[in-house]
């Protein structure tokens, strides 16, 4: 019985992983305001990377945003963004860091466990939040396997 529960649990978590991956793909277009307000200093991160409460903390502390003041002057714009992030937030547990860092999650670490640090260095990527460094479609919200430039390897497939 226990093993049956375990198998069902595994299947369910597999299904949620698949839907997560699809969630990223479905997020193919970011609102223009997200690209201009958030995506001009860093990659426009997929909103599914943080849950609602973590996005709430990010948006409430924009004046102390990872070492910089990213305040949005127009309150309406800020509200629009907060709302959109909340609507599209992920469902995983809190990142457990303050401020929230998706790079600290087990999920993120597991997904990137095969990335060699020396490869990142070679590409001049000094932060794991520089998604576009490897995910060539990141600016458009595309994180598919076929658009990854693996550090230290210029082509993933011969034919792409």
């Amino acid at each position, binding site marked *: 019985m226990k093993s049956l529960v375990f198998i069902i649990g595994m299947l369910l978590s597999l299904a949620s992983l698949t839907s997560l991956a699809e969630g990223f793909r479905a997020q193919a277009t970011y609102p223009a305001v997200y690209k201009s307000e958030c995506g*001009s*200093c*860093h*990659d426009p991160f997929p909103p599914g990377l943080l849950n609602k409460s973590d996005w709430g903390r990010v948006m409430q502390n924009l004046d102390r945003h990872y*070492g*910089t*003041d*990213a305040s949005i*002057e127009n309150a309406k714009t800020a509200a629009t963004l907060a709302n959109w992030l909340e609507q599209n937030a992920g469902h995983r547990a809190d990142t457990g860091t303050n401020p929230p860092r998706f790079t600290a999650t087990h999920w993120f670490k597991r997904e990137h466990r095969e990335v060699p640090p020396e490869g990142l260095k070679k590409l*001049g*990527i*000094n*932060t794991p*939040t*520089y998604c*576009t*460094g490897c995910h060539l479609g990141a600016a458009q919200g595309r994180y598919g396997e076929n658009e990854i430039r693996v550090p230290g390897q210029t082509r993933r497939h011969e034919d792409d």
Partner: protein
Amino acid sequence: MKKLISILALLVSPSLWAETPAQFIASYSAEAARTQPGFVADAARGKAFAAHNWGVSEKLASCTACHTDNPRNPGRHAVTGKNIAPLSPVVNQERFSDPAKVEKWFKRNCKEVVGRACTAAEKADYIAFALGGR
């Protein structure tokens, strides 16, 4: 009457009408001339300003830390790695065309890099540098 006043205010406010880099330089220069009579924007001064190490932010010590010392080159955010389109309107026509954007970025970046708001004179010099200088 109130409406008329606000329309008149819009008409005389040069920054709201600035749409070309030259117009931005003219309006910031006019503002600067109020405290520095005879002020003329200077690209060389703008270049020195851009390269100056302000000692406020370790990674973002100068404008050139992200924008490079040649405004015609694309830059790269020194912290996030994000690509930045060239500053020079000569190669990037979007630059210095939208007053709201220009003010937004001067405000943010000056606070972060210079540690205070930039003066109108500094802005005029900087745009002159971005427009003509290398």
